[in-house]
């Protein structure tokens, strides 16, 4: 089997298993009280990390590029209560325009 196919098969099988783990073992049962308090904070913690990494994350470095003004414009759109579609479009448009202008 070629290197490519080893990567494809191993990554796919492991990812499927990771995703299935919680729902297969714990599915349909409420989590213990102490755990619920922790799990409800997972969304804000992970979403904030995803915003950060996708805005200024590079390959083992922090990179300030056209993504940052795009996301700041999105933040303004959210502040003005724009619908999600508009928020996403504003971010892409601002980033694209800055890239086009800066060549």
């Amino acid at each position, binding site marked *: 089997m070629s*290197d*490519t*196919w*080893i*990567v*494809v098969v191993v*990554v*796919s099988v*492991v*990812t*499927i298993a*990771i995703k*299935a*783990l*919680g*729902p297969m073992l714990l*599915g*349909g*049962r409420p*989590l213990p009280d*102490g755990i619920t*308090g*922790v*799990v*409800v*904070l*997972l*969304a*804000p*913690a*992970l*979403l*904030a*990390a*995803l915003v*950060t*990494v*996708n*805005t200024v*994350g*590079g390959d*083992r470095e*922090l990179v300030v590029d*056209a*993504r940052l003004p795009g*996301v700041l414009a*999105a*933040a303004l759109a*959210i502040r003005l209560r724009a619908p*999600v*579609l508009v*928020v*996403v*479009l504003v*971010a*892409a448009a*601002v*980033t*694209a325009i800055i890239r*086009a202008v800066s060549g």
Partner: protein
Amino acid sequence: MSDAARPERTHRDGVRAVAPLAVAVVGFGISYGVLARAAGMGLVAPIVMSMATFAGSSQFAAASILDAGGTVAASVTAAVLLNARYAPIGVSVAPSLSGSWWSRFLHAQLVVDETWAVAAEGEGRFNPRVLVGAGLTLYAAWVLGTVMGVTFGDVIGDPDRLGLDAAFPALFLALLVPQLTNRRAVEAAVLGAAIALALTPFTPAGAPIIAASAACLLGLRRSPDEEPSA
């Protein structure tokens, strides 16, 4: 946030919630297809990977490491590290998924960051129908994009030109803000962002996001003064 009077959301609401992102996901899939092709992964393997893995950032990482001449072990490790967050995410979704083991298994496969976030109903509950609607929409977009990328990526050019890479953090931000309904959630978000920011220069991709999930341990603290979030 949750409101008993609000009509229950359906599959259609899931489709609608991620529709703005579907175009960006197609673009992201195209970039993956182009990169995978350039990395010498061929025509079929990248498509099979998108169909089986359905986790974009990890596939990108795996392909970029192969492209840079990295080893199979390095490529697999990076991808698995990036997907490790789906273990705690899976635990958070688990109580909302009832039904047979294979139904739970299939629902679990449709969980990606975006579908998980739009399916959240507050108080740790998730709507399985919204998850399926959103999941199938983005799955179709992801696989379609990959097919387009590997087959005629050269004609399309670089999707980053269109600013599509900024669409993802914008969506995550739009999903984060409504979650910030109490002090604890704000603290968890600030801490999560700070951890990710601090670790990014020093750790392989994926590690900062997994480490940031530790910010949810703030939930172990007792705070009698906190108002119940409604």
